[in-house]
């Protein structure tokens, strides 16, 4: 059984077809990259998976470990082990970083039947993980994403991923707005979490992120469906010839 199974996903936004029968199967231990030009449906795919209101499927189905996601709210999906790293992380004025993380982690732990961490133990754990991601204490004390630089926001997303230990992570254009150094830190953070029991789907425009997070499979998304799949070499082809060549060939 696949960890994540997307079967013929169809979705409309404002009456317009965005996903047109998209299928994808992701197994444990795998890293998949989904590449595509602007407007191909990349962000729609990530919101659909995460369960954002207004992004419900019109046709097809998505399964997480065999369980259909269609009736599950965003929070249930997250507790079940699905994580979305946002392209544009949302600012939460007045919500402190530590208490936000603790609320999220304890929601997941409760779902898994694990013991919730008390405040002190939690702070200790966060600091340990955060330091590996170059997330400073001072950042954790601030309101979530408020006044963070582009790099800080993305590092904070990956810190959340590390704390929540999801089964499947969708990274939505995590490389956007990052310089090379920040890209490396974020990628190292992601790579440190790769293991045999989880999987990662990297959604990106550019090949450059895939130099750091090396995928097992690359898929080309165009006009709402996957038109070509292959290994890492497919990303290099995109880099060399652009999307146009692939799309025309398909």
């Amino acid at each position, binding site marked *: 059984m696949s960890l994540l199974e997307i079967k013929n996903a169809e979705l409309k936004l404002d009456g317009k077809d965005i996903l047109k029968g998209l299928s994808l199967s992701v197994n444990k231990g795998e890293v998949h990259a989904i590449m595509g030009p602007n407007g191909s449906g990349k962000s729609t795919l990530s919101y659909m998976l995460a369960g*954002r209101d207004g992004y419900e499927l019109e046709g097809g189905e998505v399964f997480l470990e065999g369980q259909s996601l269609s009736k599950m709210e*965003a*929070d249930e999906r997250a507790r079940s082990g699905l994580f*979305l790293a946002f392209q544009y992380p*949302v600012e939460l004025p007045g*919500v402190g970083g530590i208490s936000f993380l603790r*609320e999220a982690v304890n*929601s997941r732990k409760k779902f898994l039947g694990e013991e919730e961490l008390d405040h002190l133990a939690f702070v200790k754990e966060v600091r340990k993980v955060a330091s590996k991601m170059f997330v400073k204490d001072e950042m954790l004390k601030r309101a979530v994403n408020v006044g963070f630089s582009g790099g800080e926001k993305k590092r904070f997303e990956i810190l959340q991923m590390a704390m929540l230990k999801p089964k499947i992570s969708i990274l939505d254009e995590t490389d956007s707005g990052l310089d090379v150094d920040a890209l490396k830190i974020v990628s190292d953070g992601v790579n440190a979490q790769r293991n045999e029991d989880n999987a990662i789907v990297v959604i990106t425009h550019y090949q450059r992120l895939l130099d750091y997070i090396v995928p097992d499979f690359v898929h080309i998304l165009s006009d709402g469906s996957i038109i070509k799949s292959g290994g890492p070499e497919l990303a290099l082809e995109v880099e060399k010839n652009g999307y146009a060549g692939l799309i025309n060939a398909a």
Partner: protein
Amino acid sequence: MLHKVKNNYITSVKNHVSQFKENSFRKLASNDFKSWPSPREETWRLSRLGVLSRKEITPIIPDFKKKFSSVSQFNGSIIIRFVDGALRKDLSSKLPPGSSLNILGEEDSLKCLHKFKDSNLKNHPSTNVSFSCTPSIVKLTIEKDVNIRNFFEIIYEGGDDNLSVHPALYIDLQDNSSITVIERFNHLSSLIMPLQLIELKKNTSMDSLKIFSDNQQSYNLSANCTFLSDKSNYNSFSVIKGGIFTRSETHAYLQGENCNLNLNGVYLSSKNQHHDLTTAIYHDVPNCTSKQIVRGVLGGKSTGVFQGKVRVAPDAQKTDGQQMSRAILLSENAIANAKPELEIYADDVVCAHGATVGEIDDEQLFYLKSRGISEKKAKQILITAFLKDIINESVEASMQSFVFKEAELALSEIISEEI
């Protein structure tokens, strides 16, 4: 019959002042109380008092034997207690050196009345009625160069069904002095008409916190008139959560240069509550800054009103005035009204204003839910943050947790009904 009831309170006030001599300031004030404000009056259009004219209310005769019921919230605070609108020195603290509490005589009371009558609070019902019916005007004086570290905790309580309560306080901060004042309104089922006159002399500073938490049958029509001289600071924050109808109206006159004024606050409204924060700031001289930042959370069939006026006189160049009002509606039946008014007659000024009324932000809600946090908890987190944000920004650090606790109590009531 209706007509008779309509005039009932006016007659009660006239009867009350009949015991005083002809030239008393009370009679002068009562002469101007001819009716409740009509909804046709612009400043009362959104907060209508019609219901009061149909009630049979009489001014309270203070019971000086009444015990107090509200306990102090702070260690080491200097308590000043008003019961039934009357100062109770026997239930108040001894004042620290450099401060004094006096009851004003006829002549000084008349001066206070004139200050109100020269202001835009001249027609406010509390001005006319409370000057007529207050047991006495109490003056708190802070002497020159005196900085009092401990909080003044002023507790207003008492009252009862169909009675009106009239505490009147005049705070005089003499040059180079500073204080922090926390006021709590904890009346029972009455019509409360507090009057407050504040004079901030040169280079003074006052932090003020007001908690309106009268019981759910009360009407509170607070009227505050504040004058600021050179280099004075007035930082005021109100939490309106009590009463069936609470309106806090503050008029602040910036009369000296380099003053800094904040009239900020939150209202937390549920059921049938009507809450109104009305502020007016008059920049009469150059180089002053002012802020009016107000946030509201509403549930049930409640109504919130923010009316904020900034007037910048032709000479008041280099004025910086900020005004922002935001309200979150948690119920389809709740209403929030925001009415900003800017009257700017000077050309070299910065005046920004904005008002939003809406539901909880979708993006923020989705972000929290995408982290496994339930919708109910996520909404709680966002509303709490909405209040925490303004409290942290506006309230002096040592009082933030107290203010937040006060707000949280009311908030949990709204949330339990709506989410």
